């Protein structure tokens, strides 16, 4: 039984169009022109319990809008969704007890107080029994390695430490579903790594379902086996992470080490790097085997590796290939 079901989910926004300058402002005052922007346009997918799914797409693709519809923050314009057996937009308390939404750019902890005070407030808000609260908090502070930080005012914590505290606050009521919107935004590689490890471990021990949006491919590669790619409000890919490179990666990268100076390889493909005896060559994926055998027969190759190009490249190609935004201008 899927934990999240989205059927033909869509969200339209009416956005005022305003010309720049004083004349534009005056015109806007008397005759407003609006356009309808389809932020999300008929998206359908299902997520099973325990899955960790990444939601990818460029800025403005509709990722956050979809997450907000799943969290019941905004009403869908069309289609429907069901999360944990509830219609999210009803905002039933029983539903809100069972999931959490973390937004990397917003914080819910009291800024001037130690996180421990905000945690206590969460206990009241979620009406958690004291013993369960103590146990969960103990487990989480250990998992997120923040034992010494809970008594420090939140404003004095580093961004990474604060994000870990935000995660603890979001997990205190033991949600079954965790929606994460850019949880590692602004963090350095080490900070990102810590958050990724904690989330992976939490998923392994608790079996929590996660849907995550992120611009950092490291997050996605570290956490998710399945990805949903959305662009201009439409779902353009739903499948395994590896499938993206198979389906959209046109090229392969060859890293070659020669016995002597690297020969001219431009007839095989694009030479991206050639230093001394080493060369990196980008070749057409479909011709990989013939180029390889040709290379090995004609040159003395001492070392060789065949790699997929970075995931970002494949994702960028999906974005480029998918359709243009759907807009309808109306005057009112």
């Amino acid at each position, binding site marked *: 039984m899927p934990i999240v079901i989205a059927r033909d989910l869509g969200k339209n*926004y009416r956005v005022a169009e305003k010309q720049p300058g004083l004349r534009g402002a005056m015109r806007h005052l008397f005759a407003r022109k609006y356009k309808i922007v389809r932020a999300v346009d008929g998206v359908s997918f299902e997520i099973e319990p325990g899955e960790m799914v990444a939601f990818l797409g460029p800025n403005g693709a509709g990722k*956050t809008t979809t997450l*907000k519809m799943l*969290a*019941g*923050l*905004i*009403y869908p314009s069309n289609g429907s969704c069901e999360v944990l057996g509830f219609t999210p937009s009803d*905002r039933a*308390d*029983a539903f*809100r*007890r069972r999931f*959490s*939404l973390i*937004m990397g*750019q*917003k914080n*819910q902890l*009291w800024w*001037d*107080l130690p996180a421990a*005070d*905000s945690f*206590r*407030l969460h206990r*009241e*808000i*979620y*009406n958690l029994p004291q013993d369960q609260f103590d146990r969960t908090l103990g487990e989480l502070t250990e998992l997120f390695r923040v034992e010494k930080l809970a008594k420090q*005012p939140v404003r004095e914590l580093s961004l990474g430490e604060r994000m870990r505290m935000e995660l603890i606050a979001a997990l205190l009521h033991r949600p079954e579903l965790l929606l994460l*919107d*850019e949880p590692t935004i602004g963090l350095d590689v080490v900070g990102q790594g810590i958050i990724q490890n904690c989330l992976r471990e939490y998923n392994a021990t608790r079996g929590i379902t996660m849907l995550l949006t992120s611009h950092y491919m490291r997050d996605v590669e570290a956490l998710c086996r399945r990805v949903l790619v959305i662009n201009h409000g439409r779902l353009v890919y739903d499948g395994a992470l590896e499938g993206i490179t198979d389906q959209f990666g046109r090229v392969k990268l060859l890293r070659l080490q020669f016995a002597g100076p690297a020969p001219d390889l431009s007839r095989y493909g694009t030479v991206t790097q050639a230093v001394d005896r080493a060369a990196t060559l980008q070749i057409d994926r479909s011709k990989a085997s013939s180029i390889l055998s040709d290379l090995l027969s004609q040159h003395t190759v001492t070392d060789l590796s065949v790699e997929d190009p970075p995931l970002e490249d494949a994702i960028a190609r999906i974005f480029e290939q998918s359709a243009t935004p759907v807009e309808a201008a109306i005057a009112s």
Partner: protein
Amino acid sequence: MMRYVRLFRAFARVSLLGDMAFRGNFLIKVVVELLWLGLMVFFYDRLFDFTAAVAGWSRPQYFFFLGTYYLMESLIETFFLSNFGEFSELVRTGNLDLVLLKPVDEQFLISFRHVEWSTLPSAVFGLILMTRSILQLDVPPPAMAYVAFAVGLTCAVAMAYSFLLMLSATAVWLVRNQSLYELWWLFMSLMRYPKEIFNAPYTNAIGWFFTFIIPVLLAVNVPAASVVKLLDSQMIAYLVASAVILLFVSRRVFRRAMQSYRSASS
């Protein structure tokens, strides 16, 4: 219900902790607030050196009225005014999202999530002023007068709450609605004076309008008059009815606003 009482206590506690984190600022706010009230009392005290009554209210009666106003203003400012003041900012920045995610009634969470402790001493100031006035009265008020006062004041605070709730809800459609708050300050100014001051040929209509159409003038007048002047049970009933209707309507308006909320970019 008990859960909401506990939750309110938790909000009050965290707010106090927040205030205590900046003790200096907190103390300055309290002192300035009390100085301001003290200055007003001094002004009215001097005024009564020149006249026996203002609009039919004698010195002790008028000071009881003033004490009631301070008490009501303090309750409003302590428990919900700042929360409503921040509401449009929550809408504009999209931080309302964080409120809507909690398994608690949204209206409760928005109205009472922060307690402004620094304005509570004004309530004590008001109570002292009222007690002193009662002791100065020739005839002590009957017990029934205090009941009427409690009912009247509760209804007045409830009306102010409902009005602020509706005012805040407009932020969902207008996003920036600070200009509407000018209306609130206008109403607060109207509440500050006995309604009899409108008993003049050119202002009768204004007094009538703000008594029966928008019953702002009743807020302080009716509870204060119940104790130190006349207990008008019809006016108390009118106040109760107005409060109940306003509470009901404001909740409907607020819920409608929440359905129209479109969140902000993140």
